């Protein structure tokens, strides 16, 4: 099909043809085409089929306002052909089509619309109920658009995210938006301008009407050049806004071109102020068969011709209700498109006499007070029926394109997401903001302005308004007021057209209010008849506005028609709530780049080199075990009989200093922390207000008012806040330094641990010089100074070396070298877990929970009951439930030989009653039997008690086994190995 040559307004480069395929047929478009314009230019008129009735659908809008042109492009479903730029080699398939779009096998459904009234899904096909699953699965197969291939990779291309900060976010790159951006930028503000199209200028880019001596598109070009040159203005094109949120956070996404390094980019702009200049769109005219291929919006036909050089039709009928429609018809006529007639729903109120003169000059028949009432033709428009709005005879015309609208409506979506209050304006006949959120300004044609000078001036007013709002960085207040005075002198909002629908609607034909969900005028009446008589209810009942186009096609019309059918004044109508996202970024874009940023210990590569299997533990990636055996038998045996080394770097490590450091320690720790001495580890625990164990670790005094302490790995990140929170009412002078990352740590454990350490240092580490719970500073290797803590979490002789993290790999090499003769090997978290459980040492969260206190788990000995001065956190709760009956207590379990082995979490039962559960259980090579740590009710918590464990083999299948209660300290209960 031949293309028009529209001149400077055209964005298509006819010298760069692009080959693509539609339904396997090779076609040619041009660089600058969208998929829709290329298809239309290649003669395609039926783009797909409708959701419910499978009616043929064609190109209706150019901004993705309906799902008519949602297509599968290169295997990706639901790509909007109207906004997707054509690329060479694209393979395009229609959606919701069985067979060929022209001869869809489900096209017969159109004749069965009586079976699908409004909300049929809720009340039809449910009787007999036994058949409902059959209907349900059939309906579900029919519903929806597009098909996903579970095996396909949809996350193609680079998806990225960008965070912007600005004083002003201008939404809309039309003349008002550009003027606002320039004014704000000139005032010294940082401006981000977001335009959903590929270039700035809005409607002006395809309008040739004269503006102060030059065509509008040139004016747009000049403004765009100034905006791009402005120092403070950051321009983002192809960047639809998805919503405006609290505190003026504007979100959206940018679609990359072939030259961009990304495919899609989610962006967020934190702005002090927002200027919404989103413009207007056609309000669809509701008339019989208004969905036929060949019925389209004014802007669609106009842009096809002016922007893409595509002849929209050979014989075109216009049924419009505003001046822009008249201007479009005249312009198309000038481009050689035959205009059959123009019907204007307005009796009067058109622009000045020059419009009528232009129509007369071109001999275009003009029918004021009339509108098209019916499109003729089944698979494409062959003609139309014109009627006067006052009634009377109809007249039939032949045409192959019907351009129709009911006037223009503002794009209210962005304002709605910003929580602006909107009300119907009886002058502009559109929804206008009556109350704007703080810092949000509106400009341009969405305020009802039609004169290009007024639109631009409104942008300048908004631009200086935001400058004033942002703190008066204006050069002068007078400078700000000048545009306001200028705007006042220009034409104000134009009168709109209040037509609700075309005459003679219904009468055996379908008149669509919502194209996406096949929602008809009749469906609106059915909703009202069922009592669902407001748009919000009709939306949920009949699906109006639930399709991809959301409010754009159905929104204002639905509210107006419902008010009309109820007999209410149209100004009482409220549109349905517009919900973000307003655009449609891909899920891959919303998911983001998916970087896995986590913490690694200083020894990560060393451990990986030794076959460590890593698992996430909070923020850290930690070695769970080494090699293929997750039960870690060899690792455990090596620690029990020889020597092993654990990378315990994630352990929380802190320094607290200051005159009130001891007071703070006394507050959060349960023990008497005044007993913390230099060179000696004081083991203690922290509780919460309910007396539950929150953390444990050791504290070492390092000088007057200066302490070093450790916490569990999991609590390290919360410790500073914990101290600050529990001392917030005391004006205490102390300082905390988190050393968790500063210091790495190695735990050398096992009977040969001392012999390894002796090879590392010249310091005396004998049992006499360095007894259990001692803390020393030792020098290792070539002068690395480390804290060495003699502890015994795993129940063996252990030395924990805490050294600056950057030295730890060096230290590791020394330790492995020194221990090589003994067969030293690393052990991981699972081995540590088994070793400490055999010893009966508690891990917070594994053997403690919200129902148990410090005393319940056998650690009450560390609570300084005499201390009532320091107001220890949790002490009142511990006192209150000290002797409370029915509490859970921590016990050890020995599972009867031959009985089924329990698992972590296995229930302890007494008949039908649950009396506790197993926290940790393992089969121990050291002990030679299956042991466990369990929380059981106090009446069962005495040594020798036989208890029953309930295993659920499968849902409903339960097996019980038996175990005996004993002390949880299974291994070395007297602690002789720790002290050896």
């Amino acid at each position, binding site marked *: 099909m031949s293309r028009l040559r529209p001149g400077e307004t055209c964005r298509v480069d006819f010298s760069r043809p692009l080959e693509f395929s539609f339904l396997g047929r090779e076609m040619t478009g041009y660089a600058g085409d969208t998929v829709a314009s290329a298809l239309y230019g290649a003669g395609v008129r039926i783009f797909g089929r409708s959701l419910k009735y499978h009616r043929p659908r064609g190109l209706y809008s150019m901004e993705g306002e309906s799902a008519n042109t949602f297509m599968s492009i290169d295997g990706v479903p639901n790509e909007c052909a109207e906004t997707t730029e054509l690329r060479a080699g694209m393979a395009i398939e229609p959606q919701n089509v069985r067979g060929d779009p022209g001869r869809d096998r489900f096209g017969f459904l159109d004749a069965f619309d009586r079976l699908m009234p409004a909300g049929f899904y809720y009340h039809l096909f449910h009787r007999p109920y036994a058949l409902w699953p059959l209907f349900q699965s059939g309906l579900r197969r029919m519903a929806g658009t597009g098909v996903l291939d579970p095996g396909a990779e949809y996350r193609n291309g680079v998806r990225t995210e960008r965070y912007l900060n600005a004083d002003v976010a201008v939404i809309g790159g039309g003349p008002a938006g550009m003027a606002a951006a320039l004014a704000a930028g000139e005032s010294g503000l940082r401006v981000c301008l977001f335009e959903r199209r590929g270039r700035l200028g809005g409607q002006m880019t395809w309008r040739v009407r004269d503006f102060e001596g030059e065509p509008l598109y040139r004016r747009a070009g000049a403004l765009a050049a100034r905006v791009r040159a402005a120092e403070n203005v950051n321009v983002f094109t192809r960047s639809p806004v998805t919503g405006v949120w609290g505190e003026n956070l504007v979100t959206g996404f940018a679609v990359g071109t072939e030259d961009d390094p990304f495919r899609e980019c989610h962006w967020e702009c934190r702005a002090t102020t927002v200027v919404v200049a989103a413009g207007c769109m056609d309000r669809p005219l509701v008339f019989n068969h208004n969905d036929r291929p060949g019925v389209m919006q004014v802007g669609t036909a106009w842009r096809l011709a002016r922007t893409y050089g595509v002849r929209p039709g050979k014989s075109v009928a216009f049924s419009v209700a505003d001046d822009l429609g008249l201007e479009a018809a005249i312009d198309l006529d000038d481009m050689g498109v035959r205009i059959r007639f123009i019907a204007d729903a307005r009796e009067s109120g058109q622009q000045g006499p020059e419009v009528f003169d232009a129509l007369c000059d071109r001999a275009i028949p003009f029918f004021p007070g009339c509108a098209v009432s019916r499109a003729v033709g089944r698979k494409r428009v062959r003609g139309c029926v014109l009627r006067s709005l006052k009634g009377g005879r109809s007249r039939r015309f032949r045409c192959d394109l019907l351009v129709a609208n009911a006037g223009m409506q503002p794009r209210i979506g962005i304002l709605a997401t910003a929580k602006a209050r909107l009300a119907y304006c009886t002058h502009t006949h559109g929804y206008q903001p009556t109350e704007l959120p703080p810092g949000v300004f509106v400009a341009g044609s969405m305020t009802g302005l039609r004169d290009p000078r007024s639109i631009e001036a409104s942008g300048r007013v908004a631009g200086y308004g935001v400058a004033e709002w942002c703190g008066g960085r204006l050069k002068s207040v007078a400078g700000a007021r000048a545009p306001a005075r200028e705007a006042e002198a220009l034409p104000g909002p134009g009168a709109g057209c209040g037509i609700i629908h075309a005459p003679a609607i219904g009468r055996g034909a379908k008149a669509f209010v919502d194209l996406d969900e096949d929602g008809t005028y009749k469906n609106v009446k059915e909703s009202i008849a069922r009592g669902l008589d407001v748009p919000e209810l009709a939306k949920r009942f009949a699906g109006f506005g639930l399709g991809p186009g959301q409010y754009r096609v159905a929104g204002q019309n639905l509210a107006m028609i419902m008010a009309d059918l109820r007999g209410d004044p149209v100004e009482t109508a409220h549109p349905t709530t517009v919900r973000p996202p307003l655009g449609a970024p891909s899920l891959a874009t919303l998911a983001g780049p998916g*970087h896995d940023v986590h913490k690694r210990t200083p020894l990560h590569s060393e451990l990986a080199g030794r076959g460590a299997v890593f698992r996430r533990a909070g923020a850290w990636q930690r070695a769970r075990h080494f090699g293929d055996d997750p039960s870690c038998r060899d690792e455990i045996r090596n620690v029990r009989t020889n020597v092993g080394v654990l990378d315990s770097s994630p352990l929380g490590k802190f320094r607290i200093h200051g005159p009130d450091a001891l007071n703070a320690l006394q507050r959060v720790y349960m023990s008497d922390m005044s007993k913390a001495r230099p060179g000696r580890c004081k083991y203690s625990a922290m509780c919460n207000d309910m007396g539950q164990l929150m953390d444990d670790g050791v504290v070492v005094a390092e000088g007057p008012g200066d302490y070093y302490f450790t916490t569990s790995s999991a609590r390290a990140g919360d410790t500073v806040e914990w101290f600050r929170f529990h001392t917030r009412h005391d004006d205490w002078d102390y300082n905390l330094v988190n050393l968790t990352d500063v210091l790495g740590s190695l735990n050398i454990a096992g009977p040969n641990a001392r012999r390894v350490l002796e090879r590392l240092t010249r310091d005396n580490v004998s049992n006499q010089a360095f007894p259990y719970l001692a803390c020393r500073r030792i020098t290792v290797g070539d002068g690395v100074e480390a804290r060495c803590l003699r502890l015994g979490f795993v129940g063996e002789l252990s030395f924990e070396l805490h050294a*600056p993290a950057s030295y730890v790999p060096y230290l590791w090499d020394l330790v492995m070298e020194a221990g090589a003769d003994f067969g030293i090997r690393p052990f991981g978290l699972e081995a540590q877990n088994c070793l400490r459980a055999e010893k009966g040492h508690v891990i917070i969260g594994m053997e403690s929970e919200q129902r148990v206190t410090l005393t319940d788990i056998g650690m009450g000995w560390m609570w300084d009951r005499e201390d009532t001065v320091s107001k220890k956190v949790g002490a009142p709760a511990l006192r209150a439930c000290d002797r409370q009956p029915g509490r859970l207590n921590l016990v050890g379990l020995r599972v009867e030989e031959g009985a089924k082995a329990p698992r972590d979490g296995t229930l302890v039962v007494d008949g039908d009653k649950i009396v506790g559960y197993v926290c940790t259980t393992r089969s121990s090579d050291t002990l030679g039997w299956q042991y466990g740590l369990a929380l059981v009710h106090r009446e069962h918590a005495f040594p020798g008690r036989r208890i029953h464990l309930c295993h659920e083999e499968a849902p409903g299948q339960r097996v019980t086994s038996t175990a005996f209660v004993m002390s949880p300290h299974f291994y070395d209960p007297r602690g002789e190995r720790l002290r050896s």
Partner: protein
Amino acid sequence: MTPQASGRPRAFRRSPCSFDSKPAETELRGGWTVVLRYEGEDGHPGPRLVDLSHRRRWDFQDSGVAALRPMGLAVPERFGEVGAHGPLVINRMNRTQVAIWHLGTGPLPDTPEETGFTETTDGHCLLAFVGDGVPEVLEHLTALDLFDPARAAPFLTQGPVLHVPCQVVTFAPDLVVMTLARGYGKTFAEAVLASGAIAGLRPGGERVFQRAFAEGKRFS
């Protein structure tokens, strides 16, 4: 806690992050292997990411910090203000705390004996973003407003970058330095380079930072 190296110098210490690029020039300094320049770096005009984790840093806390002169440096009056004094930079973090970084090439001070000092060199990964296009790189990483023209550079911003808590000092639009917990260093740097690749970010050696910092008389 500085080791006394015996015999010939050895690389004792390991940085929390490393880059895949091949170093063209390195230097052994205080136990660290410092990359001065990467191969192919000189011809790259765009932004660069420089690992400065070997640079010494201190935490200083005292309830009366405002009236003190830690290491002889004047403490910035307000939170978020940064003082640049020769090779040292002092960041006012809150009411009681400052961070001191040794970034320049001047003399390296020892850790003072005062109680309030804690050396935190090993606790952080210190990264610098140098060159044209740094703002765009950082826009891909954080929602923090690191280039607010209303704030006088250099200034400190504390908040998440790639969801990791960071201290960020903006010296100029082409020079930003940040610290984060050491444990995140490796995976953070990988994510930064991946995110910044579309803005042309590449690893850079210490020399490119030193040049930019030396030019920074504008903020001293």
